[in-house]
């Protein structure tokens, strides 16, 4: 199972919104085989997930966590759809 993790600074607010939106987008794109969760930056280690989704402001701070996907906006579904699709492809979930 591939794991996508939404990460924000506190793990309370925006990471949960991104978590929900990733699930929504995966469903729209009909991509299965992905678990989604959210966490705060301080509690995540490299290897915890296959891809880490973060807001652009913490992308640098998260760069050690592996495959980091930086979002310009936390609530832009169109942007998220493109980036989730690209990430799924990168991880061999789609052709």
């Amino acid at each position: 199972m591939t794991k996508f993790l939404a990460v924000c600074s506190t793990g309370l607010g925006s990471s949960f919104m991104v978590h929900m939106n990733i699930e929504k987008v995966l469903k729209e794109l009909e991509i299965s085989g992905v678990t989604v969760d959210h966490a705060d930056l301080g509690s995540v280690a490299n290897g915890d997930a296959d891809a880490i989704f973060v807001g652009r402001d913490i992308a640098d701070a998260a760069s050690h966590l592996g495959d980091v996907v930086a979002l310009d906006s936390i609530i832009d579904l169109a942007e998220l759809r493109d980036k989730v699709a690209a990430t799924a492809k990168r991880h061999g979930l789609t052709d």
Partner: protein
Amino acid sequence: MLTTHLNEETLLFAENLGGWRDAIELVSAPLLDSGSISRGYVDAMLESIADGGTYIDLGYGIALAHARPERGVIETGLSALWVRPEVLLNDEPEHPISFFVCLAAADSTSHLETMAELGVLLSDDETRDALLAATNAADALAVLTSGESK
């Protein structure tokens, strides 16, 4: 439900603010008054932003102001403030904000339903535009109520 937290008392509108600090003070005032947060929580949000915490900028001129529960949340609450014209978060030109939401989360789970609803609402282009365009609490409540049914 969103409107459990966001109502006539917690939906605020302000014009010509001196800056982002004024916005944080104003948006947190109803939560301070109701006893949801302590003064320390307001200071924690101010410190966090001044320390470069512009990650609370969600995009579209919307900021989700918050700090950790242990910094002074007494009970979960939410408030919102429309500012016209926009203010610059931490005085940074790349972070103009016209709508502040203040989140006080008492723990890491009790606010999740509310956050999910807010996320759905803010991620929908039409609903977000309508919310941002609100000029009074009645307009905003109408949008929030319509959003709850989505």
